[in-house]
């Protein structure tokens, strides 16, 4: 029955019992007993990062690419505070994480002890839940509950703060209980009556659209499968948020591309003009809706979401369904089939004709060049040369992130890792490390901007130490490109502090870490250089010098509705009205 062991041993035992194989962490005084236990076993790999923020983003990459929770272990005080950005990131993007922090001994809490911080206080608003464990006997229960809370319902990061005396003391260890603890059991089945109402709406819709998001990925592979079945069976057009790319294949025939601020023209126009919008696991983010009162004004809106607070938060929903995507889609398909697989085909044909006209605008067109590498061109070549590879993409934050979303194709879920909600520069590199840890033989590429990449460049040490052949594909415009673009459009081309000055020589930097560096400046050399990167068996920094003042289009200016989209070739001066300038 209940075995006696130290708190530190319990941590390792619980991780094993929860099926954890990898922990990302950094040691310090308050977690030494746990590190001692890690030293004495071989089931769990510990990846020593170079900064705790890196540990959390790596765990996010691991989690998003596997569907399993990511695990982080850091020390008290600065270890915990360094992990805060990563947790805030995971909370906004619904990534399941279990973060373990050391704490000063219980009898010293509150005394401003060495490396004491109020970790549960600091992290309360950036975790789904957190615990301070004061009693070794309570530890195993909390550890198991933490895994349940992180993964059940809408996933998110949780934190357990473990004082050092609790790690040393002996207590009884209880193994996990099936189904998780009773007190947290989010509802997964949707209401059948409301689902039927949605089926009726789908049967008669003349201009339907599916607007899908990260919730489809969160729900698991079955959800993506069911989504594909639904699209194919009903011939409904489908778009997705940044977070949902890959749930429906980017090469699929009903795919309209990403929607939103930098989404595709056809996707945004279809959202604006549709008569039935079915939102599946997305949350009407302001990058999607633009001006709320002009957002898809003539549509009925259905919303499938596991989190009741997502529904009616931003946009009024006519058909609200609380439940897990896979469960709800399964019921929806069953009901739709049982009622005779009806759709308004004629209307759908007209709708598709309209959509094809929008598609013909070719909104991603850009001015090509044979003198300088256009960032879009670099991504098109990367796409072409890595197609067919077992490929995972992470990104940093900025223009390159948007171009990656526009120009790379994702045919499977969990292949695209990006910081959407918090928009954390410095996410992509450590995330690529986490992904590569989970998929040792796959091609893992971080599409980066030079400024973002520098924010966590210390993780080169991690990549080299653990022989992780992550490819850092840096679109180097020597600018904080996304900021510069806004300054151009919004602040009279006054480029206040949006230069990347004093940049390192990335090739030498790579070599200094014992990795490979590649510099590419000429479009003619690009293919060979990319091939060299792919074929090199080890981490690579690819410094791709690109056009410095390229803007990312299409773009819906802040405060404008979807059908007021800016396209690349048109004039963009004074496009953002004064009211929009206060929005971010």
């Amino acid at each position, binding site marked *: 029955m209940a075995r006696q062991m130290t708190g530190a041993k319990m941590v390792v035992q619980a991780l094993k019992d929860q099926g954890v194989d990898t922990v990302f962490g950094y040691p310090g005084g308050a977690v030494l007993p746990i590190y001692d236990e890690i030293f004495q076993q071989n089931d769990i790999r510990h990846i020593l990062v170079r900064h705790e923020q890196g540990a959390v983003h790596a765990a996010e990459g691991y989690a998003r690419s596997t569907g399993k929770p990511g695990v982080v272990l850091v020390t008290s005080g600065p270890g915990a505070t360094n992990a805060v950005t990563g947790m805030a990131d995971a909370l906004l993007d619904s990534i399941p994480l279990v973060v373990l922090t050391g704490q000063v001994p219980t009898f010293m809490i509150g005394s401003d002890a060495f490396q004491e911080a109020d970790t*549960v*206080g600091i992290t*309360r*608003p950036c975790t*789904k*839940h957190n615990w*301070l464990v004061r009693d070794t006997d309570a530890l195993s229960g909390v550890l198991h509950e933490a895994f349940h*809370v992180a993964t059940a319902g*809408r996933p998110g990061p949780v934190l357990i703060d473990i004082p050092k005396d609790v790690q040393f003391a002996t207590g009884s260890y209880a193994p996990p209980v099936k189904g998780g603890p*009773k*007190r*947290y*059991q*989010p*509802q997964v*089945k*949707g*209401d059948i*009556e*409301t689902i039927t109402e949605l089926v009726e709406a789908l049967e008669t819709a003349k201009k339907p659209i599916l607007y899908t998001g990260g919730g489809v990925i969160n729900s698991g592979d079955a959800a993506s499968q069911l989504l594909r079945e639904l699209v194919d069976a009903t011939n409904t057009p489908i778009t997705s948020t940044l977070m949902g790319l890959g749930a429906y294949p980017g090469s699929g025939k009903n795919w309209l591309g990403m929607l939103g601020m930098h989404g595709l023209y056809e996707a945004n126009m279809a959202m604006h003009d549709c008569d039935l919008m079915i939102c599946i696991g997305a949350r009407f983010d302001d990058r999607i809706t633009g001006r709320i009162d002009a957002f898809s004004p003539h549509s009925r809106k259905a919303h499938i979401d596991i*989190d*009741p*607070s997502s*529904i*009616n*938060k931003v946009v*009024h929903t006519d058909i*609200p*369904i*609380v*439940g897990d995507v896979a469960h709800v889609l399964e019921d929806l398909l069953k009901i739709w089939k049982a009622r005779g697989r009806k759709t308004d085909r004629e209307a759908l044909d007209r709708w598709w004709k309209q959509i094809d006209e929008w598609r013909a605008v070719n909104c991603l067109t850009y001015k090509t060049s044979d003198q300088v590498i256009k960032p879009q061109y670099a991504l098109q070549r990367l796409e072409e040369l890595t197609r067919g590879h077992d490929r995972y993409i992470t990104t940093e934050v900025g223009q390159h992130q948007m171009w990656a979303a526009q120009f790379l194709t994702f045919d499977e879920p969990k292949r695209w890792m990006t910081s959407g909600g918090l928009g954390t520069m410095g996410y992509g590199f450590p995330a690529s490390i986490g992904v590569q840890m989970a998929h040792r033989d796959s091609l893992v590429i971080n599409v980066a901007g030079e400024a973002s990449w520098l924010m966590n460049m210390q993780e080169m040490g991690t990549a080299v130490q653990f022989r992780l052949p992550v490819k850092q594909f840096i679109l180097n415009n020597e600018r904080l490109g996304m900021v510069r673009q806004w300054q151009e459009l919004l602040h009279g081309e006054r480029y206040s502090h949006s230069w990347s000055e004093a940049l390192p020589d990335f090739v030498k930097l790579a070599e200094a870490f014992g990795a490979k560096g590649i510099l590419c400046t000429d479009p003619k050399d690009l293919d060979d250089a990319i091939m060299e990167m792919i074929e090199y068996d080890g981490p690579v920094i690819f410094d791709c010098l690109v056009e410095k003042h390229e803007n990312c289009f299409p773009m819906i200016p802040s405060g404008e509705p979807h059908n007021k989209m800016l396209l690349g070739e048109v004039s963009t001066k004074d496009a953002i009205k004064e009211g929009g300038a206060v929005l971010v």
Partner: protein
Amino acid sequence: MSALQIKKGSTKHSAYNLRPTFSDVIETHTLAVLVDNEAGVLARVIGLFSGRGYNIESLTVAEVDHTGHLSRITIVTRGTPQVIEQIKAQLGRIVPVHRVHDLTVEGPSVERELALLKVTGAGDKRVEALRLADIFRANVVDSTLDSFVFEITGAPEKIDAFADLMRPLGLLEMARTGVAALSRGATT
């Protein structure tokens, strides 16, 4: 239609009010939140309100079930119907929260608050204060030659009214407990 009631594990799915959710009318609602009585739970609730910019007009908390380790937090809040629905849904997301009751829409309820008021003065004012206290059924719980402490229980409006009357009569200090509320009838 009843309001959004997030009971953990509930199979009641149609959780939404039929009232237009996006109206501008500001409403006052009394919410009863049943929570595990564990460290930090009140901070979670208060942090939610401050972090998301919701109003707290009044808040009371105390353990109501010692063996079950349950506390009841009663919150009086104001907002548009949409904001009120958000507040309830957000409260329901907090892991130690068991149930969120919106007493304002779930049928009739009783609300009571207790207040202590210190009133100083002499002569006519002192007599008038005592006379009014009697009308409001306030008790004198402390008295000196030039002060009274009154204890009054009632709906918050009654306490407001009493305090307004005491102000010109020498109200020096007041302490209020905040609202405690229960639904009427045999169910919870």
